[in-house]
């Protein structure tokens, strides 16, 4: 596929989106009953599940307990059938470990960990189908799951990826666009304060363009926030009807 056109002259992308447009996002909270909190999200063809257990006593070695705040423990795994080519292991490989670490940093910044000293919060995310932007989908699913578990947070954490093609910044990259190998930026935003919880960029990008790409990703993350906020409100509304309020 020599020279696959990622952005047409008319300004449309391979899947027909505009440069700053997100894929369709559908989400649901409270998918499972046994976990303390759970959520499922679909961003286009990327599908992720997040489950939260806790805050509970530290499991395993007590030495890991933190005297002043809760320990956030994350595991990222992606189903063996989630990618185009079958994966050998669902978790434990280098990419999964890195993703787990990044999630942990992101949620350490967002959860009010000082409220639960000497305890542990488990966040497990599972990618069921991968079509680009898995990190963003995982963060968004995990945010909803943490909220479903009723764990106090500073703010939503909304994530989105962005890329850069032919002088234009593209929001929410799909697998095809990621595979093309241009610069990629993953951003997790705390939308109310505008603080950045995680920022990662690979491949090279001219410094002059960084602001444009960053702004596109931030705007996309704010759009994600609007959608997630709607999902949470809908969920709380339904729950309150069930409780008979």
């Amino acid at each position: 596929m020599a020279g696959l056109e990622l952005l047409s002259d008319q300004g449309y992308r391979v899947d027909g989106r505009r440069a700053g447009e997100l894929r369709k996002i559908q989400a649901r909270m409270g998918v499972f009953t046994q976990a303390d909190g759970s959520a499922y999200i679909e961003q286009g063809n990327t599908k992720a599940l997040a489950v939260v257990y806790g805050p509970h006593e530290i499991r395993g070695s007590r030495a890991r307990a933190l005297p002043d705040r809760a320990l956030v423990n994350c595991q990222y795994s992606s189903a063996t059938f989630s990618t185009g080519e079958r994966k050998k292991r669902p978790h434990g490989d280098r990419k999964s470990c890195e993703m787990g670490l990044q999630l942990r940093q992101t949620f350490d910044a967002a959860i009010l960990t000082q409220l639960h000293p000497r305890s542990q919060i488990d966040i497990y995310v599972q990618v069921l189908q991968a079509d680009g932007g898995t990190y963003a989908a995982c963060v968004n699913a995990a945010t909803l799951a943490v909220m479903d578990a009723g764990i106090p947070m500073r703010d939503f954490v909304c994530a989105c990826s962005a890329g850069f093609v032919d002088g234009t910044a593209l929001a929410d990259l799909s697998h095809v666009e990621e595979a093309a190998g241009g610069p990629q930026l993953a951003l997790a935003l705390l939308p109310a304060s505008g603080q950045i919880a995680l920022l990662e960029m690979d491949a090279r990008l001219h410094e002059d363009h960084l602001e444009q790409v960053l702004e596109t990703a931030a705007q996309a993350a704010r759009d994600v926030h609007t959608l997630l906020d709607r999902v949470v409100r809908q969920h709380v509304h339904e729950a309150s009807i069930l409780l008979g309020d």
Partner: protein
Amino acid sequence: MASVALSEAEKVYIVHGVQEDLRVDGRGCEDYRSVEVETDVVSNTSGSARVKLGHTDILVGVKAEMGTPKLEKPNEGYLEFFVDCSANATPEFEGRGGDDLGTEIANTLYRIFNNKSSVDLKSLCISPREHCWILYVDVLLLECGGNLFDAISIAVKAALFNTRIPKVRVLEDEEGSKDIELFDDPYDCIRLSVDNVPCIVTLCKIGYRHVVDATLQEEACSLASLLVSVTSQGVVTCMRKVGKGSLDPESIFEMMETGKRVGKGLHASLQSVLHKEESLGPKRQKVGFLG
């Protein structure tokens, strides 16, 4: 394995109920909980299914890949099973915690498919000794609410029913080198016949009686259970005792008879559901995890 802790009084309540053929959730001893089956939930697989049995939630994806046939069976393809007990089900499964259970379930699946009639493996052969289809059946355990084996076998059967393998042909040129070509029509594909694919029926011995489809609470009361894999005709393809207790031979025969009877009914209702879903065609509204 994910389990619950029950007090002595709770156990007595469950055991006495089972003796009167009335279980905690109102079922009789030979009743299943309601099963939800949906196929074609993951679009980048050859076939997939999600099964929800009470609180047990299973997702199965089947991927077809090309490979070389095994030496002892040069004109057959083969199936590979992998079970991932994800940490979603219970935090005990974090890291390598779920590997033992996963291997146990995968080995059981290998065993129940280890006979000539269950799947037509010859149809998976592309060219003898050189190319065949390998079906990777990957099971993902998302929530664990008792009776894992039955739920997984139902999901595997549904996913195999849903599996579509692209048709290929082997072209040979004058020098004898072979080329594999895909048919032009992407909808032209091989479907597997799942009529003889067995399902597992687990019979849990509780007190003097046995029950099918035990919940986690009931599993905690039972010392031993018998796993019977039955085809839709009621043929037993595999049998295994699991659990730490022991069973006397008489009750094993009784349990086997129950397993055959219940298994036939299970197959019949699963087939009708699968065909009904199939008849809705591509217009079917996919629910997945959003429903």
